[in-house]
C-alpha cells in the first residue's frame, strides 16, 4: 500500500472512531458553542463592531475547541498504548501523521456550520451565497493550519500527565499567524473588501498552512521514537 493509501486508511480509522464515539465529538461542538455564547456576553459588540468582533470570536472558538478535538484524537492511541500496535504494522510514520492531521482537519471543518450559524444569529451577520463560499474556504484553511501543528503536539502531550496544560501552552502562541490572517480574512469577507486585500490574506494563510504541514510532517516520526 502506498503512503497515500496508508494515510487515507489512518484518516478513515480516526473518522470511524470519531463517529463511534460521537458523544465525545458532539461535546467538542458543544464546547465551541458555549465559548461563543460566553464571548457574546463578555463583549457587548453591536453593529459594525459586532461584525468585526464576530470574526475574532469564530476563530478563537475554533482554536479553543481544537484542543479538545486534538486531545481526543490521541487519547485512544495513548490508552493501552494502542499507538505501539499501530507502529508495529507496516505503516510509514509519515502516513500516520498525515492521516491523523486530515482526520483532525475534517473534524474541525465540521464545527464550521454550527459555529457560523450561531455567530450569524448572535451578531446579525448578513450571509449570502457569495460570502458563504468564501467563509467555507477560509474555515477549511484555518482548520488545516491549526490541525497540522496540533496533531504533532498532541502526539507528544497525549503521553504526559499534564497534557491538558501543555497542549494549549504549546499550540496557542504558535497558531497566532493563523488567528491573525483568519480574523482579518473573515472580517474582509463579512464587511466587504474595498481595497482587494482578501486574496493576499488568503494566500498568506495558505502559505502558513503549507509551512506547518510540511515541517510537522517531516518532524513527526521523531516524536514516536522511544
Amino acid at each position, binding site marked *: 500500500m502506498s503512503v497515500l493509501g496508508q494515510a487515507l486508511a489512518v484518516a478513515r480509522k480516526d473518522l470511524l472512531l470519531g463517529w463511534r464515539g460521537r458523544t465525545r465529538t458532539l461535546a467538542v461542538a458543544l464546547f465551541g458553542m458555549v465559548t461563543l455564547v460566553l464571548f457574546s456576553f463578555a463583549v457587548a459588540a453591536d453593529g459594525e463592531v459586532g461584525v468585526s468582533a464576530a470574526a475574532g470570536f469564530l476563530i478563537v472558538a475554533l482554536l479553543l475547541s481544537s484542543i479538545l478535538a486534538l486531545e481526543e484524537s490521541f487519547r485512544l492511541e495513548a490508552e493501552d498504548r494502542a499507538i505501539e500496535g499501530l507502529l508495529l504494522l507496516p505503516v510509514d510514520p509519515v502516513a500516520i501523521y498525515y492521516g491523523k492531521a486530515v482526520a483532525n482537519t475534517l473534524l474541525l471543518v465540521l464545527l464550521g456550520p454550527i459555529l457560523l450559524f450561531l455567530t450569524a444569529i448572535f451578531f446579525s451577520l448578513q450571509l449570502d451565497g457569495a460570502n458563504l463560499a468564501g467563509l467555507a474556504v477560509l474555515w477549511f484553511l484555518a482548520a488545516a493550519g491549526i490541525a497540522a501543528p496540533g496533531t504533532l503536539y498532541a502526539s507528544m502531550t497525549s503521553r504526559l500527565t499534564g497534557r491538558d496544560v501543555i497542549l494549549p*501552552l504549546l499550540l496557542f502562541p504558535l497558531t497566532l499567524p493563523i488567528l491573525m490572517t483568519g480574523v482579518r480574512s473573515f472580517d474582509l469577507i463579512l464587511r466587504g473588501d474595498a481595497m482587494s486585500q482578501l486574496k493576499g490574506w488568503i494566500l498568506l494563510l495558505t502559505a502558513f498552512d503549507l509551512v506547518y504541514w510540511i515541517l510537522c510532517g517531516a518532524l513527526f516520526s521523531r516524536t514516536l521514537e522511544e
Partner: protein
Amino acid sequence: MGILLLLVGSYMGLFVAPPERHMGEVQRIMYVHVPTAWVGLLCATLAMVFAVAYLWTSNSKWDDRLVGALEVSFLLGGLLLVQGMLWGRVTWGIWWTWDVRLTTSLIMFLLFAGILALRAFVEEPLRRATWSSVATIVAYVDVPLVYFCVKWFRSLHQVQSSPETVHSSMVVPLRVNSFAMLFIAIWLIAWRARVESKSRGEERPPTRRQVEGEGNV
C-alpha cells in the same frame, strides 16, 4: 569579562554618550535594550541549531546546550519585554501596544516558555531531548511568520538606527554592551549545559562496574 564589559559599556552609555535630541535621557535604555534583543535572537538561533544537531546526531551534549540556549533566550526575552515596556511608557505614553516587534518578542517568549514547560513535564531524558528539539524547530520557524504577519498590520515601532545614522559616541557603548551580553550569554549557556550534563549523569542507572564495586565493599 562579560560583566566588566557591561560595566564599561553601561558607564559610557550613561555618562559619556550625549542624550538623544528628541527622546532625551530615556534613550539611554537603548544601550541595554538593543544588545538584549540582538543576543536574545542569537541565542534563539543557537537553540534552533542545537535542536537540529541533536535530532541529527542523537548526542545528548546537544540537548545540554539546547536547554542552556532555551533558558537564556527565555531570560533575555523577559528582560527585553520589561525594558521595552519601560521605554514605551515614557516615549509613547503607554506600557503596551500590539506593535510588530513587541508582539513578536512576546510570542517568542511564550513559545520558549511552552517548550521549557514541556521539558518540565517529560521525565524520560531521551524523550525530553527529542520532543524539545522538535518543538524548538517548529517554534523557531514560526517566529518569522508571526513577524511578517504582524508587520502587515500597521506598526508603531520606530525604524531601527544604523551606525551610519548615529554618532560614534553612541555606537561605541552599544557595541561594548553587545559583546558584554554575548559573553555573558555564552557563559550562561555553557554553565547550564554543564549542570544539565551532570544532572543527567545522576539520572542514569548505575553501570555494572559500579554495582559490582558496591557489592565488594
